[in-house]
């Protein structure tokens, strides 16, 4: 194993809500809390790791403690704790919004460190390191769709193919508020909700297997509606109505955050018109923090410097 000590860059995208979040019984009969994130291609973290053969590690910005932990865990993973260096993270993801900014930071640094060491990691291994670094994670490190146990960093079910790509309007319903993911009490779902989730996961399997965006949108709306009971967001029902009104596919909500996304078919030839209409209507409600995005995963574009 030739150890290259060359600077490397890692990229990771954020998410903007969840297509599914809930609790189901896995194949061993155990109850698992899990989710499927809605990836957002325009929000990302980029980490540059400049390794040195000293053990000192500096990270910029300094407050990114979880990312620092992720760096150390990755070095540990490859028995390279004698290596240090500096890590610089650039991110355009707003923190505390439930968009996975810390996950994206962590995934980006894990990738950067891995490449710098000339190593490889599976997406599952990346997930394991990230959840250790930050106690809870989303599944944006996976290019294929998975049902992800976010507190354990484990794949509960592998859907084996990517999500059909979607267009979306991201909406921050509480722009002046932030959420502390860790202090978030897990939702105490009642048995009826758990049965609902069982049904939704069946539909989710079908939607992903056949690339059925319409069904996926319905699953997402149903899941968001159940979870609204636990983290109510102002104007959530108005947003749902609006989505229905323009013939959107559905809505996705952040399970521990303030954002929602309205899901649209990227092949819709009235897509621009629908975006314009939605943004105009939302402004009437006093919501100005919205942006258009797609769910393509650009983390394929990683480069060494």
């Amino acid at each position, binding site marked *: 194993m030739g150890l290259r000590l060359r600077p490397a860059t890692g990229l990771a995208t954020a998410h903007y809500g969840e297509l599914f979040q809930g609790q189901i019984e896995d194949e*061993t*009969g155990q109850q698992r809390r899990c989710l499927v994130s809605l990836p957002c291609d325009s929000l990302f973290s980029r980490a540059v790791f400049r390794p040195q053969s000293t053990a000192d590690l500096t990270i910029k910005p300094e407050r990114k403690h979880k990312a620092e932990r992720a760096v150390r865990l990755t070095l540990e993973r490859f028995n390279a704790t004698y290596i240090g260096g500096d890590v610089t993270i650039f991110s355009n993801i707003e923190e505390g919004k439930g968009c996975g900014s810390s996950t994206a930071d962590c995934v980006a640094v894990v990738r950067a460190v891995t490449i710098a060491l000339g190593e490889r990691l599976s997406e599952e291994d990346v997930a394991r390191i990230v959840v250790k670094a930050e106690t809870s994670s989303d599944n944006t490190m996976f290019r294929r769709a998975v049902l992800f146990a976010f507190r354990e960093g484990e794949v509960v079910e592998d859907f084996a193919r990517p999500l059909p790509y979607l267009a979306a309007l991201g909406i921050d319903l509480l722009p002046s508020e932030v959420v502390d993911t860790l202090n978030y009490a897990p939702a105490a779902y009642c*048995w*009826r909700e*758990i*049965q*609902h*989730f*069982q*049904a*939704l*996961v*069946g*539909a989710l*399997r*079908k*939607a992903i297997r*056949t690339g*059925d965006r*319409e*069904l996926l949108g*319905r*699953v997402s709306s*149903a899941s968001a*509606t159940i979870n609204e009971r636990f983290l109510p967001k102002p104007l959530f029902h108005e947003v749902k109505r609006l989505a229905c009104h323009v013939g959107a596919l559905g809505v996705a909500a952040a399970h521990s955050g303030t954002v929602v996304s309205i899901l649209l078919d990227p092949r819709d030839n009235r897509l621009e018109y629908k975006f314009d209409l939605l943004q105009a209507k939302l402004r009437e409600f006093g919501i100005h923090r919205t942006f258009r995005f797609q769910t393509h995963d650009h983390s394929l574009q990683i480069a060494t410097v």
Partner: protein
Amino acid sequence: MNRRTRNNILDSYRPNLIALEDNLIAAVFPLMKIYPAEFCIRQAMQEGAIQADSLLIETSSGTMALGLAIVAKWSGHRLTIVTDSACDSALRRRLEDLGTEVEIVPAPAANGGYQRARIDRLRQIRDENKNCWWVNQYDNPANSGSYGVLAGQLLDMLGRIDCLIGSVGSGGSVCGTSNYLRALFPELHVVGVDTFGSVLFGHPDRPRQLRGLGNSILPRNLEHAMFDEAHWVSAAEAFTATRLLHRKTTLFRGATSGAVWMVAQRWAAEHPNARVVCLFPDDGARYVETIYNDDYLSNNQLLLPHLPQAPRKVLHPLDASDSWSSINWNRRSYQEVMGGEATVGATV
């Protein structure tokens, strides 16, 4: 029984989804009631309503008893089933072999018939046993609540479903499954199949030859406002349809499947662009001596030369009589259709 074995066996009760027509899929169950039986008991354990040494009791003359007997074997609970002479000996033998105590009430009550007599005996048993729990399939929300899993299986295989058709006894399977499907497809059209002399959709209570659907009481699990249509099918029609189903498709089913098939075939043919799912709850094993016996059918005037092509459509339940009828129930409450309050629930 170890958990893995139990899960594997429970899994083996999953329905087979069989496309009978291009737009008609039958969910063919070995024993549909295993779902509510398993979930009712599991929920009761979860909520602390029963302990390891509790006695489970229920009144049923059919597949719910069998479902409970199987699940009680898995969970190690004692089970007493209170039934009447309608319980066939083959079923009784199966129940007893699984360790179930089968009690047969000797005579109908003066007021309320065998139903009342069974409930009275249930009450007695409950009074005599401190650590006793009544499953109460008619009112226990865990019955209809258990069908989320089935809804998931249907959605996984089929995606969008436009219409669900099933027989109604406790209301569990149809109301339960529709409830979960409608979270995704609120426009889902729901059709219930009942029989004459059943009070479920507004008829007066009468002795019924068609068992496995219909009821003499209004169960809480039946939410009338979920139904778009209700159909009444006679015993002769159900039995004839069951035989026709067997000869046409080789599916060996019970009378509820035949009744549902007759209604579903027609509905699917009238709506060729709709994807229709119908529920076939149990198999024909218990009906070998009756439905599958031409002598029995002809001696009891239960064999029809042919089935009606279509139901007689009525505007009010009481206008339906004797042969296949249907009403556009239109998601109304019982009260909206029938006027006046109804007594709901099986009280003990």
